[in-house]
């Protein structure tokens, strides 16, 4: 199984990200070369406005790369049709869903849309996968609740279950811990760690919870002043990457505890 674990799910080749208009290109980060392996939990870290969202949008084909390429399962992202991409990549977004009248089961079942027929009938196989996703995220007892009855933490678990039901090699989450209390932040990230191990899926999330990410992730992608570093958390600490993350006037990284401290 060791060789299978080394299988690379997503890879970027000299990727430049940013925005292009007719007149000019605004490059936000360039020369991004990362490789994410199967069954890994990866955290994406960086200050506000540094380009985390832009990177995620480029990796998920919401916007085009300025240069270079993104490969999923060795196939260029630009060669994926929307319905094929939906079978290898699922998302958990920051936006709230508006249809709160859906039951938890119905919402998770929508993850099966890429596989169902023209009217969306669920096969026995679909039901098995949905129930497994509910089980893996510990929300069996919420199955028939309506979404407006759920707390933010429960809702986030439901959205993760929906992504699991989509049955993709890669799950990308955009700041899954915002709006959550400290306990639920840890709970959600711990759950993601468990899911990556159990299901052998690659799970990439962006977050501002740097200390939690250092403790839980297999790999961290850190975006600092126009540069992207991708390595194991302890190696990144050794290299002193976290000290370059923010301006130094207010907070400093404490290597012993792996967390930030306010300057006294």
């Amino acid at each position, binding site marked *: 199984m060791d060789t299978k674990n080394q299988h690379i799910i997503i890879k970027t080749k000299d990727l430049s990200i940013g925005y292009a208009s007719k007149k000019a290109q605004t490059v936000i980060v360039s020369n991004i070369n990362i490789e994410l392996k199967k069954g890994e939990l990866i955290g994406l870290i960086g200050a506000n406005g540094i380009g985390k969202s832009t990177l995620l949008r480029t990796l998920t084909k919401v916007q085009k790369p300025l240069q270079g390429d993104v490969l999923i399962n060795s196939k260029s992202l630009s060669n994926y049709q929307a319905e*094929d991409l939906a079978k290898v990549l699922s998302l958990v977004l920051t936006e709230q869903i508006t*249809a709160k009248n859906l039951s938890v089961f119905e919402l998770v079942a929508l993850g099966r849309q890429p596989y169902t027929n023209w009217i*969306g009938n669920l096969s026995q196989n679909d039901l098995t996968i949905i129930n497994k996703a509910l089980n893996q995220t510990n929300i069996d007892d919420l199955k028939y609740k309506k979404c407006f009855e759920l707390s933010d933490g429960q809702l986030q678990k439901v959205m993760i279950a929906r992504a699991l039901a989509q049955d993709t090699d890669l799950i990308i989450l955009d700041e899954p811990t915002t709006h959550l209390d400290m306990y639920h932040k840890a709970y959600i990230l711990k759950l993601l760690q468990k899911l990556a191990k159990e299901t052998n899926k690659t799970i990439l999330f962006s977050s501002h919870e740097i200390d939690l990410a250092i403790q839980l992730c297999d790999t961290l992608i850190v975006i600092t002043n126009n540069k992207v570093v991708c390595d194991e958390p302890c190696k990144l600490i050794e290299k002193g990457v976290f000290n370059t993350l923010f301006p130094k006037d207010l907070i400093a990284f404490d290597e012993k505890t792996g967390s930030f401290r306010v300057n006294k």
Partner: protein
Amino acid sequence: MQNQKKTYTNPFLVLSAILVICFFINISLGSVYIPLKEVFNSLIGHETSQEAWQHIIQNYRLPKAFTAIIVGSGLGISGLLMQTLFRNPLAGPFVLGISSGASLGVALVILGSGLFGGIFATLFISKWGIVLAASLGSFLVLLSVMMVSLKIRDTMAILIIGLMFASITAAIVSVLSYFGSAQQLQQYIFWGFGSLGNLSWDELFILFLIYALGIVFSIFSIKPLNTLLLGENYAKSLGLNIKKSRLIIIIATSLLAGTITAFAGPIAFIGLAIPHLTRQVFNTASHKVLLPAVFLFGAIVMLVCDSISQIPNSDYTLPINAITSLVGAPVVIWLLVRKQKMVF
């Protein structure tokens, strides 16, 4: 959704039964009193004791009842499609400018006939002239909205553009009204009241054909509509082609609401209220349940409203447009107050 099929069978059976009952009540009521037994006789093809009754039922009340079913269900379904597409509880079948387009067409024919000259006018103010003008008007406005919508990424912008087109057409109608004669104005206002009773079997047949096509498009949009419940970004990540789905949904709405408006006038309220009524009763967001439920509710409400507007055993017929709002609005208010919460 295996476990859900069971729970929804009973309400559907009850609603279907109510629909059938309303259908018969609708046919047996009218300005002329016809005994219930004779109504049944006529429907199953037997002779009635008075020949006039046979004629009234078969050539007047029966097509009117079918029209009511088509109008109620068609407007209800197009309202549902628009509310989900725009994620807006205030959307209805006419947000894309269908009724304003139709009213512009009709206003041009009725009010503008003075401008075009006499012979031309009499030719156009026939029944088919009005239908043609209404269809052409709504088609042209829709076409403009659709052309713009193909270039637009944001679905909400389409909503605003539809409203802008409605404002433009309303302004043109105002100008035409200002120059119109009192008689022309009355004729235009009467068209605006809506009417279910003027259709012959031939006209009903054409209405039904286009309506059926619209229903087929609606059924094919059930899956995209369910996906769109998650919002467009999630829908895209599930592999949904947003622009294509949007087009199918808009085509379905225009076929349904467009022809209904052309044949029966701009019938208000039903398209907006029926989907809300249905959601309150069925308490689900799945369009596989909502679509047939809206069909049944729309047909029932329209049959009831038509029966009321006839004022049984009198010679008066109230405008159907007034009745739908007078009867329907209190019901929706009552439902919302009773449940204390809007389900959307």
